[in-house]
């Protein structure tokens, strides 16, 4: 038997049992639309790549990280004692930021291309759920080094659930594991970060990716308006995949540069008796909601401001999540335009409050 016949018979054996040729046929027939906005199609893939990097670097950090009372000491060890520990920690922290950034780009491009419309409502909903889980990933991971910044960020961040009427304080102390941020908080945030959140995120991600295979990439309304014969596309295998992988490589290079040239800092150990450092501020992706709450608090002082802020957030997020059920029309009509302006308003509000937030850091 030659090598070729051996490979073929091995392939046939596996194929008969797993149906590989059906998958191969599916991949061969999959196409991706080509148009002026095609660039935005890469951002879902970039987000996926960054998630894989997080899994990988996360497991590496897990090798030496110790939650609980020793949390800070173990991160100090990873950063300053273990060879290249600083690099792995820096890569994990930078990727977390790039991941949120890529998801945001992905979300807004989906929004403005109106890719949430029939039949892709579940794609939009699962994507929003993934963004929600990703921000809890960010929030819980931020505490784990237990330095000054993470201590105060968690203290302040938990004020938001605490502001929910009636049940808020109970939720906040349940998350904290006591009246103040302590080693118990680190321990439960750790469990959340490495067990609970991945267990929620992975099935959601699988569902999201399956939907993309099922419905394919959505074309923007400007493309859909063209007669079918004028729309262009390229084969996924290998043409789009090649471009996708090129974007992954670019992402890896950007990440390697950021992580090695700007290593992530480790502050002083958290100490509840030491006052908060000057100029302390939330991570950029939490800056906008933080600033909105601050602005509302200035207009409506006291508890009423907090509750009004939460109410406004809840309504805004609910409208955003439910947009596929409002803007359903295939030919963009009145509702399509309204959704577009709502999107522009959201982008403007996010950018403006983020800028104001950074502007007013003292």
């Amino acid at each position, binding site marked *: 038997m030659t090598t070729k016949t051996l490979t*073929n018979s091995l392939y046939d054996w596996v194929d008969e049992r797993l149906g590989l040729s059906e998958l191969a046929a599916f991949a061969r027939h999959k196409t991706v639309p080509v148009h002026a906005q095609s660039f935005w199609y890469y951002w879902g893939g970039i987000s996926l790549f960054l998630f894989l990097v997080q899994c990988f670097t996360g497991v590496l950090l897990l090798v030496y990280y110790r939650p609980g009372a020793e949390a800070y000491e173990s991160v100090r060890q990873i950063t300053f004692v273990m*060879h290249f520990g600083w*690099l*792995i920690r820096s890569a994990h922290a930078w990727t977390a930021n790039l991941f949120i950034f890529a998801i945001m780009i992905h979300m807004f491009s989906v929004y403005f291309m109106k890719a949430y419309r029939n039949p892709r409502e579940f794609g939009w909903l699962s994507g929003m759920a993934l963004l929600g889980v990703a921000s809890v990933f960010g929030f819980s991971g931020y505490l784990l080094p237990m330095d000054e910044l993470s201590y105060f960020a968690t203290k302040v961040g938990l004020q938001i659930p605490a502001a929910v009427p009636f049940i808020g304080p109970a939720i906040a102390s349940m998350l904290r594991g006591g009246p103040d941020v302590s080693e118990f908080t680190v321990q439960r945030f750790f469990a959340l970060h490495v067990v609970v959140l991945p267990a929620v995120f992975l099935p959601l991600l699988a569902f999201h990716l399956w939907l993309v295979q099922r419905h394919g990439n959505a074309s923007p309304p400007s493309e859909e308006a063209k007669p*079918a*014969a004028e*729309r*262009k596309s390229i*084969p996924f295998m290998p*043409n789009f995949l090649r471009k996708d992988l090129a974007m992954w490589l670019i992402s890896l290079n950007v990440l390697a540069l950021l992580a090695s040239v700007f290593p992530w800092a480790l502050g002083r150990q958290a100490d509840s008796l030491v006052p908060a450092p000057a100029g302390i501020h939330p991570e950029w992706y939490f800056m906008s909601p933080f600033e909105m709450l601050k602005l509302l608090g200035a207009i409506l002082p006291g508890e009423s401001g907090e509750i009004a802020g939460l109410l406004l957030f809840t309504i805004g997020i609910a409208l955003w999540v439910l947009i596929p059920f409002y803007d359903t029309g295939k030919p963009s009509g009145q509702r399509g335009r309204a959704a577009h302006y709502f999107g522009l308003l959201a982008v403007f509000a996010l950018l403006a409050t983020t800028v104001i937030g950074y502007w007013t850091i003292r």
Partner: protein
Amino acid sequence: MSDPIILNGAPIAQPERSYLEPVVEEPGEATTRRFFLGAAGAAGLLYAAALAYPIYRYLASPEEMASEATAITEVTLKDAQKLPLASVLMFKFGTAPAMLIHHEDGRWVALSAVCTHLGCTVQYEPQADRIHCACHGGVYNPYTGANVSGPPPKPLKLFKVAVNDTGVEVSRT
């Protein structure tokens, strides 16, 4: 390389060939193709090495720290001169367990406490005047470290002992 653009509805212009079949090249294309594949392979290897090296060093850190610790040739046991007769002090020589025995007759002996059979930590038994390994019943002489009975193939390693007013110094011979 340009992508085959498909107009919607038209059949995909890709040949339905198996990926296992070799690619047929036109003459003259072969060298550029081979050069490109070689360069891409080399770049891929460089990337793999650049990723693998820091990860290997990171994971190997405790191993390296341990080998620095094994390089230690001398340990000072503070206040160990107060050790009563017919008793033992367990301590770490580098990373490995070791024992300091103050015998009934006043003699001081320091030995490795790692059984030469399968690496269990051995125990000094003053009543029986022996060193015993509970794992497989190995027995050693508590003065010389010689393997007396049971499976141990070699004697326990003996260290040099110097007793002074502030403690006991144990060093490699």
